[in-house]
């Protein structure tokens, strides 16, 4: 007599939340887990958009030969009324050999199905949006942790500054560092792999400008432009750094972890901003932001000399920084 291993995945699984990369991973890991106890599982994927009424019934009805089935309904948030009706009908009388996995990005559509799934004891896997730098710091840290690697906070910070704009790119960068290097991942290593990115350049320019270091900021800017870097992302980073200074300054004296949570920033960003703030007052930051906004207008076609526009914004920032201490 053969012993059928006990299934570990419940018959209903709900993967909910807008972050696509997390949802894909959740789906992959659920399917892998299903295959542990049912190696021959038959997998059917149904895309909500383009669903043909009745096909859920066809795919969930028991097959002649028995065996496990997994039906994946993707993007319930785009489901037609017919698909929702079919899902509710299935949930009212589930088939024992079927594992139903439903993904739902966001919104009210499909809410009744969601509620019924939850009431039916579905395993719920959350895939919240990864938006703030704090979320990204956690994400990258966990990527390294999952690969049993350690990365210094400075390395994570540099990585997010360089490639944090796109989560998939961040994830790919983490994988690359894991596979191409050994030992502790530090800032120098990240610099070596990703230091040439436009964003990394932008951060170096912004750091120098915010520190009041006119010569260094202009030198970095000219070097970047000379090597063909577009001024637009540099302006974006300048704006973002000044914005963070204002927000951290405005948030008051709390613990950096608390302030970071309130502002959706990473704690190291709060610490960095606090260090930079010591030479600034709020009015000077305000004037600097206005200068950067004017520069953005010029680099987007409102002015004749985009590079000069950025230089002027940098000069305004460093002058404001130097003036702040004396007021």
């Amino acid at each position: 007599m053969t012993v059928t291993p006990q299934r570990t995945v419940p018959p209903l699984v709900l993967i909910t939340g807008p972050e696509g990369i997390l949802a894909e991973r959740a789906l992959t890991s659920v399917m892998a887990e299903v295959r542990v106890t049912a190696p021959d599982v038959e997998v059917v994927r149904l895309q909500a958009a383009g669903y043909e009424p009745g096909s859920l019934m066809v795919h969930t009805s028991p097959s002649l030969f028995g065996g496990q089935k997994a039906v994946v309904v993707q993007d319930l948030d785009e489901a037609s009324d017919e698909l929702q009706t079919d899902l509710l009908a299935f949930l009212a009388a589930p088939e024992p050999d079927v594992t139903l996995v439903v993904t739902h990005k966001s919104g009210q559509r499909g809410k009744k199905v969601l509620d019924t799934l939850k009431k039916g004891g579905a395993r719920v896997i959350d895939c919240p949006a990864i938006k703030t730098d704090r979320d990204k710091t956690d994400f990258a840290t966990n990527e390294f942790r999952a690969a049993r690697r350690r990365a210094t906070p400075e390395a994570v910070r540099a990585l997010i500054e360089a490639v944090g704009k796109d989560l998939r790119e961040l994830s790919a960068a983490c994988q690359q560092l894991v596979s191409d290097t050994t030992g502790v991942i530090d800032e120098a290593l990240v610099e070596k792999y990703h230091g040439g990115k436009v964003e990394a350049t932008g951060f170096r320019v912004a750091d120098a400008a915010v520190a009041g270091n006119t010569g260094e900021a202009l030198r970095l800017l000219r070097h970047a432009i000379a090597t063909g870097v577009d001024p637009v992302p540099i302006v974006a980073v300048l704006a973002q750094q000044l914005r963070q200074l204002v927000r951290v300054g405005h948030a008051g004296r709390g613990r950096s972890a608390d302030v970071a949570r309130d502002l959706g920033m990473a704690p190291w960003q709060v610490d960095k901003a606090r260090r930079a703030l010591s030479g600034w007052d709020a009015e000077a930051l305000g004037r600097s932001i206005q200068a950067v906004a004017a520069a953005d207008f010029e680099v987007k076609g409102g002015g004749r000399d985009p590079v000069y526009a950025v230089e002027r914004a940098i000069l305004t920032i460093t002058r404001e920084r130097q003036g702040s201490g004396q007021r």
Partner: protein
Amino acid sequence: MTVWRDVIGQDTAVATLHRAANDPDSMTHAWLLTGPPGSGRSVAARAFAAALQCPNGGCGECRECRTAIDGSHADVDVIATEGLSIKVALVRDLVQLAALRPSVGRWRIIIIEDADRLTAFSDAPANALLKALEEPTPRTVWILCAPSVEDVIITLRSRSRHVRLRTPPAEAVAELLQRRDGVDAPMALYAARAAQSHVGLARRLARDEGARIRRREVISLAGKIRGVGHAIDAASDLAKIAEDESGAASTERDAAERQRLMEVLGADPTARTQPPHIRSQLAALEKDQKARATRYARDVLDRSLLDLLSIYRDALVLHTGAPIDLVNQDAMAAVQQLAQAMSPEELLHAIDAIGTARERIGLNVNPLLALEAMALSLRLPS
């Protein structure tokens, strides 16, 4: 009943168009209707088309009138673009169509609702159209619509007759909302004023409580901003309000369009990967949807800035004591407060700052950054 019933507050323009539809000597083959957003350019264009097709000069009741107005008349084509530009390929198709005789009607009529978008990225679409205007086909009429004459390339302008629409009075818009949409009188007047007589916006405000709440939130930012930190927060609030509004509409529609396209292409929706020709079509659709979303988000933000602008203007009107109706009649307390807090010079400065932000966002400046610079200039004097 007449076909001009819903063209409100436009007596002069209606007289011109009505005469052209009924007197061959006053008729010409190309028209340019201009007027501020919401003044009813598209409604006027359709009414004119109906009047041209109608055997009774625009009765508003016959089959010709009804189908011309609802856009289903075989010889009336309405081109409404949702992207930022009208593509040259589309114009070439239209020029070919224009060469054909009308199939059932008295005229072949082509209405281009956003003629300003003919020159968004290059002059090629406008030049393609120019040829058709230079060599008119006897029974073909072009009706171009745009916010102002300056928005239309001069070669097109000079070959068409210009009819100017004005902003209709709020009372006329309110009356239309009552009659056509069944909105009750006080709500209709509030919505017409708050929307500054933009008919479509007014209808939305009258019917959608969410839109009213968002507008109030925008207005309430005025006169609240004090420090630099507050200004940065206010800018982020404003960006968020606009984002919420534009995000709400598009998701469902995008999915439905994708489904329809898959059906048309006979694609298997369950397939994990689609064959290349279907993939490329889907990618093209996504690109269009993205362009539409960008334009819509920009429009929504611009509308929010117009809302914000209105309360500063009202405060300025209050200072001058001019007997003009306020846009924010329903929020007198807030207007008075703002007028007390800021001098006329300061209000003008604020109005300029909002105008600058609109101009910057129009040129693709990072919206949040443009709003931050604006909010910093809107701070109350300490």
